[in-house]
């Protein structure tokens, strides 16, 4: 890929890719590393311009999946620690916002990786055919799978909220 092309791609794809990976991993630092690695890999490939977007999202998803697995335990400890320290020191509105964000993150964690990937790719505007190719299903199945994943997320979000609200 030519340098000018790469810069244009970088400017266009950095925000949605960062947002996607951050949502997938729930970890801003990991997202930064993964996005960086994804663009590095793009440098090695001479792809047609219209294939770059789906390609780099799949690469980032695979890297994120590996990262999540390897760092799962450590990340959970960090999140737990952040919750404790945040609860002790934040003003009330910040605390509520932090809690809501944690609810979202926990609800996403309850989904399978495939469900999470499909929901997040759809949210980024990928067509069903692109989602199907990325996760290895038929494009005619994507609607049903995403609809099911949406319901799972809603249920998980509700369940996590109820769990958090119930007295210890």
């Amino acid at each position, binding site marked *: 890929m030519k340098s000018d092309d790469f810069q244009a791609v970088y400017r266009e794809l950095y925000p949605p890719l960062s947002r996607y990976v*951050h949502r997938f991993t729930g970890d801003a630092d990991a997202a930064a590393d993964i996005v960086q690695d994804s663009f590095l890999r793009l440098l090695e490939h001479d792809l047609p311009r219209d294939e770059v977007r789906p390609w780099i999202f799949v690469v980032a998803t695979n890297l994120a999946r590996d990262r999540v697995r390897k760092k799962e335990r450590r990340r959970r400890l960090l999140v737990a620690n952040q919750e404790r320290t945040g609860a002790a020191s934040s003003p009330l509105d910040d605390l509520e916002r932090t809690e809501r964000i944690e609810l979202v993150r926990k609800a996403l964690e309850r989904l399978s990786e495939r469900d999470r990937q499909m*929901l997040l790719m759809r949210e980024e505007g990928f067509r069903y055919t692109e989602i199907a190719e990325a996760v290895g299903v038929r494009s005619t199945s994507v609607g049903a799978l995403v609809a099911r994943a949406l319901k799972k997320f809603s249920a998980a979000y509700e369940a996590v909220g109820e769990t958090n609200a119930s007295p210890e």
Partner: protein
Amino acid sequence: MPHPNDGHLLAWLDGELEPEEGTGVREHMESCGECRGRADSLRRESEGLSRALLMLDEQAAGLADPGPLPVVAALHGHGSHRLRRTGWSLARAAGLVLVAAGAAAALVPGSPVRAWLESLGEADRTAAVAPAVPAVELEAPSTADAEPTAAGISVEPEAGGLVVDLQGFGRNSNVHVRLTDARRATIRVEGTPEVPRFVTGPGTLDVIGAREGEIWVELPRSARDAVVRVDGEAAVRIEDGHLVTLWPVQDSLREDVVIRIGN
């Protein structure tokens, strides 16, 4: 037509059905309250997910702005764009410059650097490549700069049309508008002294009462007729897949414009 299943309904809402099939679903919906209810439920769940994800995004306010390629920042001493990890020395920055040359060489077909990279093969690619081409070490999304009042929402165009009206913003507010490939429009407001109110309707979004701030509007390229208004006056619109500015522009790239309210 029999009742469409949830997958079909969602595909219809997402504009993913073939025209004939979509027409069939639409005609069925006109006479079937049950399916209309299920479609509404799916739409609500979809919007709920969008809102939830935008909340998650608040943790990484720098996501919207890639900034310049960091290697460019390093070469030009751009003060506002930090290298990702603290403690990077001048030697590391110099290393970046050298490796930038390597990365550039890697782009040239037949170059030794490219041949070497290609020889690394598929196995253990991360370990092999990461230290070799840090020239494009990318700007990290900054969470430290996150504004406490950042808020956002996404909204889907209605039949390709969308009106975003920004109301009550002060004269020093900047409106950043860009095109994306996403299906939904995304609006984020940052740095405001109060949380704005978002009022959505079919193909409309009013952002109300946030005084001064930075407003980031991402419009779907696929929207046939999308307009960003400021207090009811059209400022930026999409025409033929391009952004057209109706107000004086502060800054502009091909698909990214910034206007200042009050100018």
